[in-house]
């Protein structure tokens, strides 16, 4: 019980400091809606220095520059679509944390479902095959 409590307090501490570490170089927007948009956008882009982190999570200088640019663009009234195309024009699709649905990326999106369907078909065939075998064995 004591250990459980300890583990729980560590988890809580980690969560709290984690939130506190999410530093913004710019002061937060006073308008809550803008701040929400800004935060959502920083989670949409990849930091290209540390490629598995989003711009929001990364401590790299480049991510800080991206955050500043995104902040300025949101402040200047640019739409989400404009900000996304600004980034993609310069860095390519890879800068988006979620790949867009295109001819070249269809397999990324559809692949898992195709695999699942293939597994279901194979499973069905195996089970049916077994049932037929058993019937064969039963018949005299």
């Amino acid at each position, binding site marked *: 019980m004591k250990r459980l409590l300890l583990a729980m307090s560590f988890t809580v501490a980690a969560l709290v400091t984690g939130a506190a570490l999410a530093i913004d170089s710019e002061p937060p927007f006073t308008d809550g809606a803008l701040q929400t948009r800004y935060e959502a956008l920083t989670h949409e882009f990849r930091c290209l220095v540390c490629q598995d982190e989003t711009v929001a999570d990364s401590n790299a*200088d480049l991510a800080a*520059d991206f955050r500043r640019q995104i902040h300025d663009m949101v402040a200047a009234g640019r739409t989400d679509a404009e900000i996304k195309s600004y980034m*993609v024009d*310069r*860095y390519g699709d890879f800068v988006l944390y979620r790949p867009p649905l295109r001819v070249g990326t269809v397999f990324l999106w559809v692949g898992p479902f195709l695999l699942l369907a293939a597994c279901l078909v194979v499973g069905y065939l195996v089970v049916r095959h077994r049932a037929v075998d058993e019937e064969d064995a039963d018949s005299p």
Partner: protein
Amino acid sequence: MKKLQQYAPFVIPALVLLFLIGLFARGLFLDPTKVQSPLIGKAAPKFSLPGLYDPARRLDQGIFQGQVSLLNVWGAWCVACQEEHPVLVDLAKRKLLPIYGLDYHDDRTAALAMLQKGGDPYTAILDDASGDVAIDWGVYGAPETFLLDKHGVIRDKFIGPLTPELIEDKLAPEVRALQAETP
């Protein structure tokens, strides 16, 4: 037909496995840190930046007009750039083409000290202290080198330090081909 059914449970998984092995083997030899720039084939992004030596003198994308040139993104803080530096100095001595520098996110004093110590291969240096212009160029790590044609269009990009081999095998032939293009 009977035979096919007999072997299918072994042959099909083996084929799938081979396909996956092929896929993963290819993945092993891809370098995910090298992201191809969408700017290749496009005109150099517009900018206006102070020169590193003389901040009062501003430079813009017009510097790339009229001849094939390089833009090298570097910084004194960047270890790979320090390794690349003598290679650039050698390249500049060959007078193959002008090399412009973009001093990225740097401390001006440190940058000048590095040039004084190792030599200055650059025809002119832009001082991008904030890193905003570098973002316009799609820079994500130094050193990066852009090859521009006579019209100031980006034709190729090299990510990571230039080496003598890379210059001999890839850059120099590309430069010559671009220089041979009609103006």
